Structures are given as C-alpha cells and as structure tokens.
C-alpha cells in the first residue's frame, strides 16, 4: 500500500484540506486588510486580494469535484483521490509562492508556511512525491526570491515591517535559501520516515485481522458442518419417537409413554438449540443480506401475535405503540420478524405472572427505533455486558429456564447489525429490562 490512509480517509483528508483552505483564504483577506489599514505596512493589496479570490474559486471547484466524485455511496479510487491531494498541494505551493512574492518575498516570514505543506504531503502521499514537492517548493520560492534579488522580478517592499534592501543582499538570500532548503528536506525526511513506520505497522494489523477473519470463517464452516450432521441424527430420533408416542406401532403403558415423552421433549429442545446454532452460523457465513423493502408494521404485529398465548397464560399484559409514520424499510423481513419475536418471547419468558411487556416503534431521524420494556426478573449487572455473546446465559436466566440456547440474543445482534442498526440492553431503574434496537429507514442509511 502506497498511502498511509485508506481511500475513505484520504477523501476525508481531501475535504479537510478544502476546509483548511477556507480558513486560509479568510485569514489572507483579513491580514491584508489589517496590515494595510491599521499597521501602516504597505502592501500590494490588490494583488493579494486577487490571489485570495483566485484561491476562493479554486477551492469551490475542488469542493464540487470532490462532492461529484463521492456522491451517494461512491468511493473514488485511491489513485484518483491521491492525485487530487497531490494537485491540491502543488497548487497551494504555487499560490503560497505568489502570496509571499507580493508581500515582501524573502522578507516575509510567511515563508515558514511551506513547512506545513511538506508535512501534509509526507503524511498523505508517497516518499518520492514528498521529495518532489520539497524540490518544487525550493525551486519556486528560491527562484522567485533570486529573481527578485537580481531585479528580474519586481520586489514588493514591506515598508514599515522589514529593513529595506535586505532582499537584494546576496549573502542574506543565499543564507536564507540554504536554511529554507535544509528545513524542507529534513521535515520531509523525518515525517516520511515516521509515516513509513506507521504504514508497516498498519499493514501488519491489516494482515493479522485478515487472518483472524479467515480463521473465524473456518470455525463457522466447521460448526455449520457439525451442527448439520447432528441435526440429521436428531431429526431421525425425533421422527422415530413421534411414531411411538402417537401409538402407531402399538399401545404403550402410561410409564412407557412418560419415558418416551421425556426423550421426545429433550430431543425437541436439542433440536431447537441445533437449529438456532445453524441459523446463527449460516447468518455469519452469508455475505450481503437480501435487502428488500418490507412492512415493519406487519412484522411487529406478527411477532406480537406469536407471543400472545404465552403472555395470556401468565396474565402478562403486552402493550404496543407504533408511530403512524412507520412504514416500509429495507431488509430481510423473516430475520427482522424473528428478532422481534425472540425479544418479545424473552420478555414474556422472564417476566413473572401479572407483569407487563410494552413495545414501542418510533422514528428517530434516519432510523426506526424499537424498544421492548418488561417488568421481568432483570439482568444482573455483571451479566449485562455479556448477554449478546454466544452461549452466554445469566445465572438467574438459567434458574428460570434451564434449557435456553444462549443463542437468541447473539442472533438478534447479528441480524440488527447486518441491517446497519444497533442493539442495546439496559436495566430499568425499578424493575425489569429494556432492549432497544435501531434499523435504518433507507438503504443508503444502512450502508453509511
């Protein structure tokens, strides 16, 4: 990788340079005005203000170009954005040289500003480009002050600021240019060395990360294979047991029915676990979700209907409030409905008889926010940071429901995050738990 920063952050830097330039233009205009009016320094004001205007136009053009290249979700190529940066820095060098020329040349301490450009190019661009820019700065600035000294170019005196005639003293010009040149090259040398080190480090991290992701995918494939095989056996066991339970192979005594029932129930639980694990692992292995617009409202009603019986059996009051503006959003309806059902089931499961579960669906900017509040047994403080981890189960959850899979919330988190939203859990101040998750209203927002 040639650049320290990735394409997206290079784009950010390009915008950043544009923003800095607005400030520089303002400063130039103000400085010219103040020096001219209040400090009785004689300036070639009209030339400087013309340069400020030029800079303004150039910055507008750049800004529009950047906007055009990054419109919507477009990501310009690293190459292109790199050249935009190079162009910006080169143009800035030319304009800075012109500004310095019209405001006293070598006698103007603003020549220090060349250092900024050297740092920028060294961090943002490659080593050879940085030395190239240092060389052009030396040639531009050195050329202008030399030509001024030789009388080829006019010199604009900073009357009231610097001693007259300094610009024409060869020993001063030579000395100044020597230090100027050494400073620029040293700055480039130091900054590029450090950036290079960072670049190597960053590459290392990127490689390690890629390796970890690869391992994780391997693990997921392994789990998928394994659970799939187990599921086959389980399905066979379950079918055989069901045949016996249903009396299809002859009548059973009560005790026999009881034992087979127990076996069957455990098989069903194991099947639920395996199915949840399969689902979660498949989800982790699939690439892009199939994002189609669907009615969130329908999903919410289906989920509410799914937990109705369970809630009624425990005399739990389930209420809901849905913003009338909530409509279709992009995503996989099946997954969202399952997530909603999961969260509601949990709320009902861990809420004692006579409790309350309430659900609100509201718009919040570019997102839909779903909140599920219960008056349940709550989640212990030490468990809160872990509830979305696979297989994790809080001690009180385990005590309430022995055979939970510990996968429901991990699945919910996967679904929400894959849709570009976020999921959170909070302890209610008095009793119970609140789960909140967001879903983007538009595809653009989900990719942002």
């Amino acid at each position, binding site marked *: 990788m040639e650049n320290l920063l990735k394409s997206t952050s290079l784009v950010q830097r390009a915008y950043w340079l544009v923003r800095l330039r607005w400030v520089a233009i303002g400063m130039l205009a103000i400085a010219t005005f103040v020096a001219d009016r209040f400090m009785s320094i004689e300036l070639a004001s009209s030339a400087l203000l013309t340069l400020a205007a030029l800079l303004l136009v150039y910055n507008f053009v750049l800004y529009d170009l950047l906007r055009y290249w990054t419109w919507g979700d477009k990501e310009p190529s690293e190459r292109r954005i790199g050249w935009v940066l190079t162009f910006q820095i080169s143009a800035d060098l030319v304009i800075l040289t012109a500004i310095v020329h019209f405001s006293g040349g070598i006698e103007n301490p603003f020549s220090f500003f060349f250092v900024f450009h050297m740092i920028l190019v060294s961090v943002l661009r490659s080593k050879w480009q940085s030395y190239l820019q240092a060389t052009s700065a030396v040639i531009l600035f050195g050329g202008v002050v030399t030509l001024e000294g030789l009388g080829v170019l006019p010199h604009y005196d900073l009357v009231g600021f610097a001693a007259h005639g300094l610009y024409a003293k060869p020993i001063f010009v030579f000395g100044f240019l020597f230090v100027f040149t050494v400073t620029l090259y040293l700055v480039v040398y130091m900054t590029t060395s450090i950036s290079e080190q960072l670049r190597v480090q960053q590459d290392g991290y990127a490689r390690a990360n890629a390796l970890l992701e690869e391992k994780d995918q391997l693990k997921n494939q392994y789990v998928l294979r394994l659970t799939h095989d187990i599921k086959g056996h389980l399905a066979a066991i379950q079918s055989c047991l069901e045949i016996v339970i249903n009396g299809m192979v002859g009548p059973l005594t009560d005790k026999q029915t009881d*034992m087979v029932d*127990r076996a069957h*129930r*455990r098989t069903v639980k194991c099947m639920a676990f395996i199915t949840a694990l399969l689902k979660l692992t498949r989800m982790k292995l699939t690439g892009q979700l199939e994002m189609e617009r669907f009615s969130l409202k329908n999903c919410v009603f289906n989920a509410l209907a799914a937990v109705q019986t369970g809630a009624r059996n425990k005399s739990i009051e389930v209420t809901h409030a849905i913003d009338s503006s909530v409509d279709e959003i992009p995503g996989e309806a099946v997954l969202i409905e399952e997530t909603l059902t999961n969260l509601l089931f949990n709320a009902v499961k861990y809420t004692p008889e006579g409790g309350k579960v309430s659900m609100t669906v509201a718009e919040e900017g570019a997102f839909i926010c779903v909140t599920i509040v219960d008056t349940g047994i709550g989640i212990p403080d030490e468990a809160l940071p872990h509830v979305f981890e696979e297989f994790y189960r809080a*001690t009180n959850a*385990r*005590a309430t429901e022995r055979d939970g899979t510990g996968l429901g919330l991990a699945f919910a988190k996967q679904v929400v995050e894959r849709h570009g939203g976020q999921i959170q859990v909070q302890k209610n101040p008095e009793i119970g738990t609140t789960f909140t998750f967001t879903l983007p209203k538009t595809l653009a927002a989900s990719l942002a």
Partner: protein
Amino acid sequence: MGQGRILIIDDDPDITEAMTVVLAHKGYEIDSAADSSEGMERLKANRPDLIILDVMMRTSQEGFELSRKLKTSAEYKEIPILMLTAVKDKTGLDFKATAGDDAWLPVEEFLDKPVKPDVLLEKVASLIPKS
C-alpha cells in the same frame, strides 16, 4: 424388603427419572433431590445406603463441593457416593482419589453420562454394602 435405599441428587429431572426407573425395577428404594440443599434435607430425613450425585448442577462444581462436605462430616462420611458427570472434559477437573490433594474427589466411583442401565446396576450393586 428392598435391596437398599438410594438418594439421587441431580438437577435434570429426566435423568433422575430414567435412573429411578432402572433402579426401582431392581427393587431399590429411590429418593431424589434437585440440588445440594434439597439433597441435605433428604439425607437427614431418610438416610440412604448410597448417594448418586451429579457434578454440574446450578454451578459447575456443586456436586463436587457437596461430596467434600459429606466426606468430611462424621455423620455421613460412611455413605458411599457414586458421582455422575457429563462434563469431565469441559471443566478440566482433574479428579484424584487421595485425601488432602486439592483435586481430591472424595467419592467411591464415578461414571460418565450417559450411563448404560446395566453399568449403573453393576456399580450400584458393588457399592451398596450387603446386609
């Protein structure tokens, strides 16, 4: 008269029921408890000839702790314990039979779950002192 009285302490009702059926079939008298404290109650109420104890109940070492407690009490240390475990590999517990060792597992026998009925019966028979 029965073959002997057995107390099963296991938090899994299906496992308990399955063992009860197997053992009762052979004439043993079965009592059961779902955790340590209930186990202690049953123990006091009805002294068994053998305790079948599950290692991993509410905590992963509940059975382990109960067995130490019993084996260090003057009243119950004579009762043989048959330890059941499905988690030997997972917990990495290193069972040792010598007292004083940190990993001392003070039980007479232990079996991995699932336990085959004939193996269970054989072990139980060998542990219950013949009167």
